[in-house]
């Protein structure tokens, strides 16, 4: 099989799919031209991510990595979400084929973009370095 059972499970039964109309932070990354876009919605109370939802246009691994990323950050403090790495998503899914690793990078970036949006909207100061690679979602197109 192309994908692990965990990837297929999260692809077939994605967790936390949908949108949060009154989200505190929204992040959208990716490019339709490249075939994947992830949108992440965060509800944050007292620095805790109380709810998270996602919408994804993309392949099986794009949907599975979005789903897993939401599970990994739900109920966690914002600072923990900022520590989420694409490797953690990949490991939680029991691995991804090499040419699908960029999906896990997108998932990490989507979470961080949503946190940045939350910081910006609430006037919370942060180190811009934390979001330095946010625009790196073209993955070498053309």
């Amino acid at each position, binding site marked *: 099989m192309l994908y692990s059972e965990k990837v297929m499970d999260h*692809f077939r039964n994605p967790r936390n799919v949908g949108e949060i109309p009154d989200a505190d932070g929204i992040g*959208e990354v990716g490019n*339709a031209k490249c075939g994947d876009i992830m949108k992440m919605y965060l509800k944050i109370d007292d620095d805790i991510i109380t709810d998270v939802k996602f919408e994804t246009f993309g392949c099986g691994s794009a949907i599975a990595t979005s789903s897993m990323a939401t599970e990994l950050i739900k109920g966690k403090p914002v600072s923990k979400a900022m520590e989420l790495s694409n490797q953690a998503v990949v490991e939680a899914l029991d691995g991804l084929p090499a040419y699908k690793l960029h999906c896990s990078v997108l998932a990490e970036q989507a979470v961080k973009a949503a946190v940045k949006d939350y910081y910006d909207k609430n006037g919370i100061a942060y180190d811009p370095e934390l979001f330095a690679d946010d625009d790196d979602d073209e993955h070498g197109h053309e």
Partner: protein
Amino acid sequence: MIYADHAATTKTSETAKRVMMETMDQFWGNPSSLHTPGQKAAEALEEARATVAACLNAQPREIFFTSGGSEADNQAIRSAAYLGKRRGKNHIISTAIEHHAVLHTLARLEKEGFEVTLLPVGSEGIVKVEDVAAAIRPETALVTVMFVNNEIGTIQPIAEIGALCRERKVVFHTDAVQAAGHLPIDVVAQKIDMLSISGHKFHGPRGTGALYVRKGLPLQPLIEGGAQERNKRAGTEDLPAIRGMAVALKEACENMEQVNARLTVLRDRLIEGLSQIPHGALNGDRERRVASNVSFCFEGIEGESMLLLLDDKGIAASSGSACTSGSLDPSHVLLAIGRPHEVAHGSLRLSLGEENTMEDVEKIITDVTDTVTYLRGISPVWKELQRGERSYVIQ
């Protein structure tokens, strides 16, 4: 499982399997050996050659067995290119929608100093004969145009291009991998100089194919070694596969008319059913396409997730999305007919075969419709389209 991916491969027919087993039992000798088992195998090999030749209206001496369509394409193109070079010709004409076996060979030849013109095909996915005519120059060594496109099923004007090339004295090759056994082929009437076929696209075994080369046209080997295939393709012949392919081709040609009549009805219903899905469109000309092919693009979704969900529902299909190819770019064929990247990612190819039924087609229509609706429901792109924040490409 409803198998709707016959353009990828077909199940080996019972006749082909039986002939292959029989070959291993009775014709296991090496056709190059002088003894009786060898000569029995040599006779069986020539019989298979005559069978393949008859299906194409060629002479047996014009048929060379290869390991498949890719090898046949590689050999035909390289051979014609080098022949041209010896005569001071370094220009090759082809189309933007060829199989990679052709496109990558041409790219290699470009690095070797050949000049390659890839003609556009327009939104209908069919090359214009006048474009081929306009591209021919005194230094044109070869025109290579596929008979039927593998992704969108469009039929190219092969007889017209053949007549043009014969008149202009340019070698004409056609990759007929998707046509052999599915459409009438007559290398004499269609004025074809070289033609590639592949066994497993018409219920023969894989790992075997054939190259037709018109008598008098020099052919250069790709694989050097023994004197097999009249010195044009070294290596002990895979006789079980060759005989299996020959019998499968004969069977496919005999049943062609009847199978195509049935498939056309299924295909038309499938196109009609899938056309009900909003913001989706058929890829390739509606009329000039093989009876088996239905190719669609749907906005707001990605092809690989569609294939995986359809597989869960028991439908085997294919897509030209980047994610199914292992590269980042979607199908060059869909881009060539003018589909933008974001829409080409949402493509679905259904290629029918003789075992498919109308019941299969109705299930495919229902399941594809449900799958597209579900994936659009979780797609931020679809929501942006619906909210008017992004413009529909397919109205």
